[in-house]
Every structure is written in structure tokens, then in C-alpha cells.
């Protein structure tokens, strides 16, 4: 029974996609109902797999057409859900479920929603399929479906500024990435004559031939494009900003995580290449550059969503750096950060969507003072901003802390000064992230309200519910994270490090040993620093103490006065005695002292993000070539 769940979850999403197109293009109820049904079904089915996979350590396998492996050869397409797949699977289904709820409210002003939901469900099905599949070519097919659906969704509001252009760039860069994955898969097939990942892993453990090294390089580069690390990040910034927000959330939350998943799957499980320090260094450098470039570019943006897009890139840099460490601690931290990024970046995009929905603009210089009109959105945004900046007690702090600890441990054990630089970069990037969210907070939610936004209202409940769920998850994952670590992260990290076990479970017991892949037991990662219960108590105590002191002092303490309905001079903002006037410190006016010192840097990097497709493709091709060459030289 259980083993049908993965394939059913994927297939029902695809089925619903076609049903929506047939029956739902006119009828709103059928459309929304089908979408919600399919995504809820996928969520329930993946959650049901937690017990066998995460707790009992099973691997759910399903062979299409019952083509189970015969005498050690896996020819059929298999769905293999191990803990790593399931971890990402839960993220995928949860993200799409929340996004489909949000879409009901957010998209109701658009036309041709049948197409929207069709593409949306195709996208969800393909990402879920990519995560669940155990066949490397099937993975490629899913990547391509994902790219199509993403491109079409990016261009969905094709009359909005830049949507078509963004879609075109996304398509071109994306298909270069998938081409290199395809070429890598083909080369791998020529060496191993199989497409099943477990079998590939056992064959490749005998040592990599030069062709497989090239294949490895191409596949890493391909998944690098899919996870939008620098210098492949350019279309991501455009597409996330141009797509409808419910889709941007999915892009940033899950579509680039699919690339990260592919990277982990390939590097850790299929090629088991993390023993090579060259691979670690290469990925670490790419990760560090990604987080730095992402955040510095985000600091100069004037568009709310484009700024968030650059932050997505930056946070993916954290994940890649953490994953590159090759240790259980790093991998756990990376997976946790990937999960947290899905939560808080999804939340932030939803807040941006709420602002766009009510005011019709996301230009930071044309907004301001919305906190009086949209207080609930503001609170959600502040939680998301705190989480992404890694402030305690939110989830970002826990995962970022694991990452710092992982990198610095790596620096000490390997004695490599490079890792110290990366630790410092990671910490500084965290502060810059905070800075750019301060900028958004000031420019959008605080400051002064513009006259044209006087009749702005809070968004409808159907949009607020996903925001609240995500905000709650941000806090919960930050506080009860030992449970998260025990039931989600550790099994996933274990599954990616303990390759022999995976091969055995897929291909039959004893197969891994015959191929020379050891089954090892990974030690659970322990964290003693952050005892969330203690922290909650600490917060509680100090808070209550403050409250008690305040209450005891009601008689003596001066009163807290708030403005009434009619304007009074006493409650007016101080303008050196002048009458209150409109004067907003906009987003682009902030951080002058910083920008002045970084003028040279910004000059170069704004020119590099030129917006010309051929420039972007050149970066992509050159970087792919560099990755392949580096790996070819250092891994042989």
C-alpha cells in the first residue's frame, strides 16, 4: 500500500493538471477545488511516508510496470523514496499546498486561470517527481518539465513589465543547464550502461574514469544552473521578480531547492565525490561567492521582489557552502537551512505579494507606511525578516549557527585558511541580509504613508492563512528544532552519507558490499548550545518581569498616550516645528555611507548584470567549462 504513495502523489498532480484544463477553465469552483484536492492529496501522501521512511529507515521503492531489478540490473524506471527524497518531498508538497491556497486570493484578478493552474500543477508534479525518482534520465525529463512550466508561469502576466524578457532568459539559461545535465547523463550511461542511481553508485564506486569525471562536472554544473548559484543566477533574479508572487514563492522556495537536491543526490550518493577535497573546495568557493554576490546585489535593488530574489540566491549560497563541507554537521545544517529558506523566503514573497495585491506596486521608492494599514502583513514580514537575518529565536538562527560551526570546524580540522575566510563571509553576509531587510522594512512598512495608499486594506483571509502558517513554522522550527533534527534532518543526512545502505535496500541485500561500498553508521549530530526550551523560559521570565514591573508602576509611571481620531499637534511627527508634511526616506536613499565606500564594486557588478541574454549565456557556458575543467584536472 505504502509503496504506491509516491507515484500516486506525482501522477495525481499531473492528472489534475489536465482535468483543470478540461473542466476548470470556465468554472472557478472546480478549478480551485481540483487544485486544492491534488496538492492536499500530495501533502497527505508524503506526510504519511514519514513513519516508514524517517522513523523506521525504510526506502520505499516502486518500479514502473513492475520492472524490478533482475540479477542485479535495474532497467525499469524506479521511484525510490529514501529519507533525503522524502525530506525534500515534504518541503515540495507543503510549499505547493500553501501556494495553492494563496493563489485563490492572489490570482483572482487575472484571466485564463485554467492555464495558470494547469501549469502550476505541472510544475508541482515535476518537482515532486524529480525529488522522488530513482532514475537519472527520468530526473532529466522532470527537470525539463519543470523548466517549461516555470517559463510559462514566469510569462503568465505577459503584459507586466519584463515578464517576457525574464521568461526568455530563464528558458535560455535553463536549457543550457539541462543540456549539460543531459550530456552528463549520456556520458554516464556510456560508462555504466544503467540509469538507476543506486546501481550507478555501486558501479562508480570502483573509481571514476575520465569520461565519468567529465560527466560529473557537467552534471554538477547543470544542477548548479538549476539551483542558480553565481554566475548562473542571472535569470533567477529576473524571473522571481516577474512571475506572479504565488509562483515566485514556489520558485524561490522549491524550484531552486530541486537543483540543490540534485546536487546533493549526485555528489553524495551517485558519485560519492565528497571525499575529494577539490570537490569540497570548488563547491565551497562557489557557495561563498554566491552568498556574497547575492546579498550585495540585493542591497542596491529598488524592487521588492527582485531584492527578495537576490536574497534567495544568497541563501542558496549558504546551503551550497554547508553541503560542500562533506561532514554530517555541515550537511545537516545545509538541509536545515534549505528547509528554513523555503519557509521564510516563502513567507517574505507572500508578504511582497500582499503588498503588490493591495497597492499595485513593488517599487520600494513608491511605497511606505503600510504598517498602519496592513498590520498583520507587517508582523508576518518582521518575523520573516528576523528569520532570514538569523536572529534568535527564529529558525534562521539555528541553521545558520550549524553552518558557522560546520565551516569553522572544517577550517580547524583541515587547517585551511580558505574556510576561515568563508566563515567570516558567512557572518558578514548575515549582517548585510539584515541591512537590506531593514531597508525594506523602512521603505515599505514603516515611514510615511503615501496619499494614494490611503484606502489600502489588509489582504483577505485566504491570503493571510498561508502567511500565518509559514510565520508559525518559522518560530516553531526555531524552537523545537531538536525534534525537527531528529525526525527530518538527521535521517536525511544519514541517507545521503550512508550510501551502502541505500544501495542495499534498492538492489537487494549484499549488493553494496559486493560492489565495495561500505555501509556505515553516521553518528547523530549533537548541538548543546541552543536549548530552545531553556531559551523560551528565559524569554518568558524576562518578559514577565518586565510586564510586572510595568504593571506595578502604573500609578507612578507616566501614561502611554496614543493619538485619537482628529489630528493634534502633540502626536504629530517632529519636523523641527514645521507642520507635518510628506517626507519619506525611501529605500534607495538608505546606506549611503556603505555604498560610497563600495562604489567600485557596485560599478563592476551592476555592469555585469547587464540584462543582455548573450552576456548571461556567456557566463553560464564559461562557468560550466571552468567547473568541468577544474574537476577534470583535480579529481583524476
Amino acid at each position, binding site marked *: 500500500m505504502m509503496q504506491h504513495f509516491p507515484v500516486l502523489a506525482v501522477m495525481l498532480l499531473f492528472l489534475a493538471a489536465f482535468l483543470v484544463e478540461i473542466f476548470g477553465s470556465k468554472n472557478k469552483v472546480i478549478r480551485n477545488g481540483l487544485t486544492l484536492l491534488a496538492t492536499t492529496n500530495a501533502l497527505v501522501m508524503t506526510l504519511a511516508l514519514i513513519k516508514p521512511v524517517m522513523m523506521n529507515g525504510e526506502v520505499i521503492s516502486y518500479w514502473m510496470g513492475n520492472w524490478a531489478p533482475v540479477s542485479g540490473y535495474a532497467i525499469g524506471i524506479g521511484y525510490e523514496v529514501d529519507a533525503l527524497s522524502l525530506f525534500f518531498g515534504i518541503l515540495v508538497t507543503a510549499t505547493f499546498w500553501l501556494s495553492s491556497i494563496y493563489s485563490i486570493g492572489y490570482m483572482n484578478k487575472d484571466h485564463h486561470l485554467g492555464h495558470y493552474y494547469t501549469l502550476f500543477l505541472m510544475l508541482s508534479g515535476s518537482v515532486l517527481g524529480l525529488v522522488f525518482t530513482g532514475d537519472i534520465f527520468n530526473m532529466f525529463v522532470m527537470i525539463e518539465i519543470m523548466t517549461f512550466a516555470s517559463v510559462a508561469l514566469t510569462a503568465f502576466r505577459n503584459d507586466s513589465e519584463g515578464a517576457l524578457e525574464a521568461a526568455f532568459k530563464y528558458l535560455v539559461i535553463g536549457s543550457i543547464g539541462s543540456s549539460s545535465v543531459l550530456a552528463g547523463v549520456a556520458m554516464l550511461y556510456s560508462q555504466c550502461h544503467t540509469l538507476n542511481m543506486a546501481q550507478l553508485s555501486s558501479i562508480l564506486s570502483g573509481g571514476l574514469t575520465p569520461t565519468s569525471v567529465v560527466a560529473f562536472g557537467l552534471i554538477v554544473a547543470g544542477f548548479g544552473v538549476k539551483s542558480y548559484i553565481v554566475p548562473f543566477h542571472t535569470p533567477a533574479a529576473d524571473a522571481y521578480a516577474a512571475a506572479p508572487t504565488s509562483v515566485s514563492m514556489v520558485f524561490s522556495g522549491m524550484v531552486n531547492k530541486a537543483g540543490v537536491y540534485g546536487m546533493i543526490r549526485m555528489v553524495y550518493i551517485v558519485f560519492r565525490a565528497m571525499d575529494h577535497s577539490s570537490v569540497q573546495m570548488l563547491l565551497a568557493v562557489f557557495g561563498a561567492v554566491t552568498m556574497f554576490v547575492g546579498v550585495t546585489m540585493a542591497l542596491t535593488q529598488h524592487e521588492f521582489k527582485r531584492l527578495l530574489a537576490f536574497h534567495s540566491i544568497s541563501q542558496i549560497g549558504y546551503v551550497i557552502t554547508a553541503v560542500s563541507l562533506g561532514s554530517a554537521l555541515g550537511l545537516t545544517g545545509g538541509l536545515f537551512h534549505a528547509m528554513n529558506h523555503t519557509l521564510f523566503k516563502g513567507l517574505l514573497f507572500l508578504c511582497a505579494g500582499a503588498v503588490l495585491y493591495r497597492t499595485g506596486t513593488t517599487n520600494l521608492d513608491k511605497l511606505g507606511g503600510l504598517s498602519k494599514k496592513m498590520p498583520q502583513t507587517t508582523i508576518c514580514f518582521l518575523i520573516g525578516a528576523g528569520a532570514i537575518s538569523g536572529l534568535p529565536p527564529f529558525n534562521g538562527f539555528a541553521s545558520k549557527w550549524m553552518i558557522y560551526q560546520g565551516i569553522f570546524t572544517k577550517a580547524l580540522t583541515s587547517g585551511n585558511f580558505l574556510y576561515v575566510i568563508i566563515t567570516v563571509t558567512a557572518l558578514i553576509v548575515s549582517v548585510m541580509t539584515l541591512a537590506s531587510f531593514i531597508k525594506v522594512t523602512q521603505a515599505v512598512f*514603516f515611514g510615511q504613508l503615501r496619499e494614494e495608499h490611503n484606502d489600502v486594506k489588509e489582504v483577505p483571509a485566504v491570503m493571510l492563512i498561508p502567511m500565518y502558517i509559514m510565520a508559525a513554522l518559522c518560530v516553531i522550527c526555531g524552537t523545537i528544532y531538536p525534534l525537527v533534527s531528529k525526525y527530518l534532518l538527521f535521517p536525511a543526512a544519514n541517507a545521503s552519507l550512508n550510501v551502502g545502505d541505500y544501495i542495499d535496500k534498492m538492489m537487494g541485500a549484499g549488493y553494496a558490499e559486493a560492489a565495495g561500498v561500505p555501509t556505515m553508521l553516521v553518528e547523530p549530530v549533537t548541538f548543546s548550545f541552543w536549548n530552545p526550551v531553556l531559551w523560551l523560559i528565559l524569554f518568558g521570565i524576562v518578559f514577565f518581569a*518586565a510586564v510586572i514591573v510595568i504593571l506595578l508602576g502604573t500609578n507612578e509611571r507616566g501614561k502611554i498616550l496614543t493619538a485619537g481620531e482628529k489630528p493634534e499637534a502633540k502626536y504629530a*511627527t517632529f519636523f523641527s516645528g514645521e507642520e507635518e508634511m510628506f517626507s519619506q526616506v525611501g529605500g534607495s536613499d538608505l546606506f549611503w555611507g556603505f555604498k560610497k565606500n563600495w562604489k567600485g564594486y557596485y560599478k563592476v557588478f551592476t555592469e555585469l548584470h547587464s540584462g543582455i541574454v548573450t552576456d548571461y549565456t556567456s557566463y553560464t557556458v564559461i562557468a560550466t567549462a571552468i567547473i568541468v575543467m577544474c574537476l577534470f584536472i583535480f579529481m583524476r
Partner: protein
Amino acid sequence: MQILLFLVKVLIFPGALFTACVGLFLAGIDRKVIAHMQKRIGPPIRQPMYDFFKLMGKETIVPARANKLVFLGAPIAGFISLAIVMLFIPIFGFTAFSGTADLIVILYFLTIGGVALIVGGSSSGSPYAGIGISREMVTMMSYELPFVLVLLSVARKVGGSTLAFSMNQIADYQAANGSLLFSWSMIPAAIALLLIIPAEVGMQPFDVAEAETEICEGPLIEYSGAALGMFKLNTAMKMCIMTGLFTSLFLGGIRTGTVVCDAIIFVAVCAVVTLVCITTIHAVTARLKIEHLFKFYWTVVSGLALASLILVWMGL
């Protein structure tokens, strides 16, 4: 009993009350000594306490443009986070809490203190506050890099080839091997931390964010009464925390055995550090511009800290 001890640690010593009292005391010393340096009599040492209680007794006006929840919540959030930071700073032999990564916890909780000021100022809706928060944030960005470098070099020095982000470990190391200040490879880092303290506390010449003469105290402009008092208290607490951090990172190792003696010596050393890095620099300098501040921290101070890190990394 356990719970009672816990409560005492959090609320009284070395938590909220102790930090606040020591902070106000240090602020008073600062004002008194600076007055003497200028050949004035100066206010009494308990003056910051009077200021605080006076502000508690005044009206708190929430401006019409402000978001009430954030406006009033920000100072309390800052207070809570700063009260918690102090729990992680060992008072020579005595440590309230110690984990494996106190340095990172301290770094982030101090950041929350700054963020509370920024968010509170931002929520007041004043353009002066807008400029103020921009400067405050740039100040934060500028001292964070050298701060991180200093912390990493201490961690490397103490830990050798293991991870030593724990304050307890640092205190033990100094008790065994003498204060870190007297190991010459750490001297540049110590100087760097001394230069970071005024910026963290918001004292001249690094007080561009709260420049009262040009931008009317920046983020604090719309605050009045109890909320302003909380912010003033937060600044004083930061003073206590930062000097205490310097004391336990670089001047640790003194252990008398009794907590009271330790605490008294600790406060005395903190006062000396305050005089060296806050009062003297305040008395002899004028306010820097924000871009010069940024440049100063990312070149001179970071250079000092980096020099220390490289020396320590080479095993000196």
C-alpha cells in the same frame, strides 16, 4: 531550589538587574570622568539613574504615524536580549550559562539590541529617524567585520585545533595560561575590540547614528518617557556587556574563589576599560562622518583584527 537559582540568575545576578545597575554605574563614571577631564565638576555618578527614573515618570507619546505595537515593543525586545547576553559572559570564575557557542550567541543577541533600536526608530515614521536608522545600520555593518575577526582569533587561540566558542573554555584557558592580553599575538585583536566598543555603545566619535545636533538623535527622535528610558537603559547595559566582554576575553584569569569578590573586581576592571576606550576617546575626538566611519572599521580595525587572526593561525 533549582528553579529559584535559575530565576535569580536571570533576573538579578548576572542577568537583568546586575547588568542594568553596572551599566548605569559605568555611564555615570564616564560622565563624571569626562567632566573632570574638561575641568568641570560634572554630574554625580548616580546621574544616569536619575535620568532613567525621571524618564519613567514622564508621559510616553506614541506619534500618530507610528505603529503602536512595534514602537513600544522594540525597547522591551532590546532589553530582553541584552539581559540575556550578560548571562553568557563569565564574571571571572562565575558563569551563569555556558554552551558550546557562546560567542555566536553573544554576537547575535547584541545584534538584536541594535535591531530593536532600528526597528523602533523606523516605526516612528519620522524622516530624521529614517536617516538615523540608515546610519545605525551602516555602523553595525562596519563594526561587525572586525568583531567577527576578533572573536574568531580568540576562538582559534583558545581552542587550538578544536572549536572553542565557549566562554567557559576561554575563562578556563586564561586561568591556566594567563590573560590573553599578555600574549603578544592577541594585542592587535585587543586594540581592535577596544575600538569597536565605542561604536557598539554609540559613543563619540562613532555616534553618527544618534547625532543630536544634526539629526535630532536619529532613531530616538520620537521616543519619550518610559520607552526612551528603556533605550537609555539599553545603551547603558550595552556598555556593561561590551566592557565585560573585553574583560572576559582578554583580561580573564583572575579567580578569587568567591563570587562577590569576583564581581567587585569585574566591575572595577570594566570601569577601567570604560575609561580607556569610551571616555578617553570621547573626550579627545569629534564625530566622524558615516563614510569615514565605515572605511575606518573596514581598513584599520579589521586590519588589526586580521593581523591577529593570521598570527594566531600560524600558531604564534
